[in-house]
């Protein structure tokens, strides 16, 4: 008998404009001790499925049809109250966002102890002892100290370990991990996934791994369930599916996943440097002590090439990019962009594309107004020529002309990012700074935007400064790479050098964190 059997599960959400099916008749099974990865893009219904299994659908969500057999008992129809005996005890949940999932006013120890107390596992003293065991088990040093700390005193990775401790506290048969590492840096991500693997080996817990990252799914699961638009597109053994995907959609996902396709390295063109940064230093004041976000950074970017700044959160890469785009003033050091004017004229030469395609477009403007804005600011042409230019730009980024009259909220994330790129190109800049510009997008959309960027570079001779935490993406698009850590550049070289012959320990660690095929 399977540990968990999902049969024809259908879930829908009630909204102000009628109901919407989020999951449509999906079936799969999970054996004891097995890791099954549910992969899919945003909106594919994978998180809804996870929530339905543990009885935590939002109040407007209902299971319309189907059975969820946990050890042979159908729990799909159970009330939330009745599910309390299952949650934690038989099914554990590792939530998505470690920074939001812990109570900020309770100590970490109290929160782990809570799950033991709710299920009445022993008196105060045994619970306290068990909490320390668990903290040690998930690899947190000094459990006695940690147990008395509050969530804000811990890093993201440590918080995720605490959440894992809570999930395994009662040694459940099944742990649902909903994007457990998406909010974490790559090196931390790897350690957390290793921990989940270890725990599985030790307790024989089955794991349902919900992820958008095919690279993670490929390396960590026994079987794959590929979801799309609320349905199961394909399922089977991970190795078999990856080797010979049956569904066209799976094949496209594999092609688009930057971590799973090894392309040729791009060799830098032999041109003169356009961006030259010398000994950049940026200090912020945190309380009384100055905090050095960028500490003596120097690099050059050649005309028509792409230079990537890679690093984890807090490495100073975004601050560096903002200094190049003159949204921040360096405390010391200089950055020059060849051919760029002073003050406002500088903006005609250097443009910035933001990470979040939802926040960087004014929700009240139409797409036409958004793309036209730079032209209006610089008074380029009259109304007619500007409108013609806007149409040309929208076509240039491969958007249909009918988006012009629409508002940003009517567009998908990828389409919005295209609009942001069109806006950046409007005044004909030579340098474009891309700050995590594809990080918020699904892999398929990400691949399309990367292709678009490459094409624009070829046609318009653009120079890119590409900020990213994702080495697989960087490998694909950049000519040269600087690896940043704690405000310093620890390694610089062509993409080929950095990826095939890393000199610095930290670069090696970063590379080890990306899944196999590209290394």
């Amino acid at each position: 008998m399977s540990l968990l059997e999902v049969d024809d599960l259908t879930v829908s959400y009630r909204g102000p404009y009628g109901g919407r099916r989020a999951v449509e008749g999906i079936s799969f099974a999970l054996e004891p001790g097995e890791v099954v990865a549910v992969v899919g893009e945003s909106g594919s219904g994978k998180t809804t499925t996870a929530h339905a299994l543990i009885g935590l659908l939002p109040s407007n969500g209902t299971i319309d049809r189907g059975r969820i057999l946990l050890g042979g008992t159908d729990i799909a129809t159970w009330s939330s109250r009745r599910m309390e005996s299952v949650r934690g005890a038989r099914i554990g949940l590792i939530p998505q966002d470690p920074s939001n999932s812990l109570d900020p006013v309770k100590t970490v120890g109290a929160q782990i102890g809570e799950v033991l107390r709710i299920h009445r596992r022993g008196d105060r003293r045994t619970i306290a002892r068990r909490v320390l065991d668990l903290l040690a088990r998930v690899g947190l040093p000094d459990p006695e100290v940690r147990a008395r700390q509050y969530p804000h005193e811990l890093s993201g990775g440590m918080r995720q370990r605490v959440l894992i401790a809570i999930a395994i506290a009662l040694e459940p048969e099944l742990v649902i991990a909903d994007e457990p590492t998406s909010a974490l840096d790559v090196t931390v991500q790897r350690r957390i996934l290793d921990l989940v693997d270890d725990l599985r080996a030790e307790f024989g817990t089955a794991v349902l791994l919900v992820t958008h990252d095919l690279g993670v799914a490929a390396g960590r699961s026994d079987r794959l369930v590929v979801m799309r638009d609320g349905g199961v597109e394909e399922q089977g053994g991970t190795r078999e599916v990856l080797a010979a995907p049956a569904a066209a959609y799976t094949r496209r996902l594999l092609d688009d996943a930057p971590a799973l396709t090894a392309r040729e390295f791009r060799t830098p063109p032999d041109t003169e440097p356009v961006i030259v940064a010398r000994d950049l230093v940026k200090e912020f004041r945190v309380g009384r002590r100055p905090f050095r976000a960028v500490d003596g950074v120097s690099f050059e970017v050649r005309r028509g090439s792409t230079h990537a700044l890679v690093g984890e959160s807090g490495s100073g890469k975004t601050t560096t990019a903002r200094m190049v785009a003159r949204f921040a003033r360096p405390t010391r050091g200089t950055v020059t962009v060849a051919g760029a004017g002073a003050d406002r004229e500088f903006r005609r030469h250097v443009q910035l594309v933001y990470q979040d395609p939802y926040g960087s477009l004014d929700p009240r403007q139409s797409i036409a107004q958004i793309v036209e804005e730079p032209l209006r600011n610089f008074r380029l042409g009259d109304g007619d020529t500007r409108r013609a230019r806007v149409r040309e730009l929208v076509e240039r980024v491969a958007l249909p002309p009918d988006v012009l009259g629409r508002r940003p909220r009517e567009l998908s994330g990828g389409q919005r990012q295209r609009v942001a790129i069109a806006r950046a190109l409007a005044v004909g800049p030579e340098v474009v700074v891309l700050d995590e510009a594809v990080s918020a997008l699904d892999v398929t959309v990400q691949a399309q935007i990367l292709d678009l960027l490459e094409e624009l570079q070829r046609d318009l001779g653009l120079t890119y400064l590409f900020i990213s935490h994702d080495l697989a993406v960087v490998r694909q698009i950049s000519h040269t790479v600087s690896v940043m850590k704690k405000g310093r550049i620890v390694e610089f070289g062509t993409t080929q050098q950095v990826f095939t012959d890393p000199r610095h320990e930290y670069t090696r660690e970063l590379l080890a964190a990306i899944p196999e095929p590209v290394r």
Partner: protein
Amino acid sequence: MRVLSWIVIAVVVLWAAVPGVFTGYDPIAGVPAEKLQPPSAEHLFGTDAVGRDLFARVVHGSVHSLTGAFVAVAVGLLVGTLLGLLAGAAGGLLDEAVMRVVDVLLSVPALLLALTVIILLGPGTVNVAIAVGIGSVAAFARLSRAEVVRVRQADYVEAAFGSGGRFPAVLWRHVLPNSLGPVIALAALQFGVAILAISTLGFLGYGAEPPTPEWGLLISEGRNYLATSWWLTTLPGTVVVAVVLAASRISRSIGRERA
């Protein structure tokens, strides 16, 4: 509820615009023989001590109360939002200075502040309206500053500067439209509050002069007959309550839509 609220406001606006359609009686000249009659088919709201039809007085009075409230909200909205916008957008010393003045205004009870202003300006319908408006400047300034500060952090505002926008253009094109939602909801709410405040000041005798059928004055005049003729205070009071409730209801629905 929302439809009902709009109907109430629409009816009151129509009273103000074309009072003759709703009542044939004269609001000023009374018929002494018909004094202090209870509500009936002939006199919907009854009559007062000099035999004037109360319904006619309420209908004709709506124009004073509504324009008063309108002026009050306009003063508060324009001055308050301008201050808030400048403070929020400029930041620094200007922000500190404006907001401290606003703090002082907020620390004085609204009615006391309005009375102080009336003593400076002298009584009268328009002066009362301006006084009430000044009382609400602080609330508008606070709210609009908070919204401006929030919107200024948005990526799209920085992107607008990044695409070569100058400060006033960005403020006008992006910051103002995106901060206005809650401010408009507050304006609808303030409309009700202003009617109440103007009626209060009318009741206290600072507003319109006696024969004028202003709502607060009507209630005040009826006070002497409370024991014998309940309708003189109750019915105009009910109208005021209905309008204020309708305004706050509409404010809530605006707030929810624009959120």
